[in-house]
């Protein structure tokens, strides 16, 4: 992001912090596609993209007043998104333990017309083989987050982030095949 774009973003965030509805609207429009992609990469579920993206932005609207450094907005937003998705996956896991039949309802086939291209299908298949934490890590990198920023999000060191990222990329590459057969 260049200097002018960063300044514009900071101004927009400051306006949103003062409760300006149009600034909040602009921020959501500016980031909705990226957040949706991020959510999809972690959950791998189309039917949850809108709900989870909405949850992320509602949290953003409620908490943006407390954001100390508006220049860190992007990093902060994707941290919110990551935590929201991981919490959701944990809840689903718990629900599966206590309500074994719920799994059936969570695996409803996607509607016709939602057919992926071969490339996207391969990526989704590969992502589905990774742990949610690793999917989040790769998605954060795709969103342009630096190793240092990711280290802050995951409360770990930069070296640990690099090591985990290396492993996650290796696994992704291993599973990145168009054919789903083992």
């Amino acid at each position: 992001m260049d200097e002018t774009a960063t300044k514009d973003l900071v101004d927009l965030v400051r306006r949103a912090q003062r409760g300006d509805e149009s600034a909040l609207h602009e921020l959501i429009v500016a980031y909705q596609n990226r957040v949706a992609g991020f959510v999809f990469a972690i959950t791998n579920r189309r039917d949850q993209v809108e709900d989870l993206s909405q949850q992320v932005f509602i949290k953003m609207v409620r908490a943006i007043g407390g954001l100390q450094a508006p220049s860190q907005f992007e990093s902060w937003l994707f941290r919110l998104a990551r935590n929201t998705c991981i919490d959701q996956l944990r809840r689903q896991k718990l629900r599966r333990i206590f309500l074994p039949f719920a799994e059936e309802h969570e695996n409803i086939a996607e509607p016709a017309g939602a057919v992926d291209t071969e490339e996207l299908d391969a990526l989704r298949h590969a992502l589905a083989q990774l742990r949610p934490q690793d999917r989040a890590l790769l998605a954060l990198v795709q969103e342009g987050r630096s190793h240092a920023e990711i280290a802050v999000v995951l409360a770990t060191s930069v070296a640990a982030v690099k090591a985990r990222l290396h492993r996650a990329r290796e696994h992704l590459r291993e599973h990145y095949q168009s054919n789903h057969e083992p």
Partner: protein
Amino acid sequence: MNPEEKAWDDLRAAASSRLRPGFARGVLRAARGPGAGAWVALRSSAAACLRPGFAARVVRAARAAAAGPSYASQLALSAVTAALCLAAVLLLHQRNQRLADERNLAEWRAIVAFAQEIDVHGR
């Protein structure tokens, strides 16, 4: 073709028949990993899941959530309700205890009076 060459050919044919269709492309994919195009496709596919008017709906939902009761107020209301229920149970218990004591005392008084009467007549 001599028998040895034929045997090698058969071996190659048997081995290659074990390869899945699109093997070469699969190997290249696995070697290179997903390119930028795959991630762009993922993001586009996800963006298509958002219905029109998403931003306006989110702002409205956030305002509605902010206007509703906060977690702290809900917690306070729960605590007050629990305290009132406990007080009601204690009061009811005390009242029942007092009534039972009064009833027992009256019965004892009757027994004592009856015993005294028997004692007087006995003498």
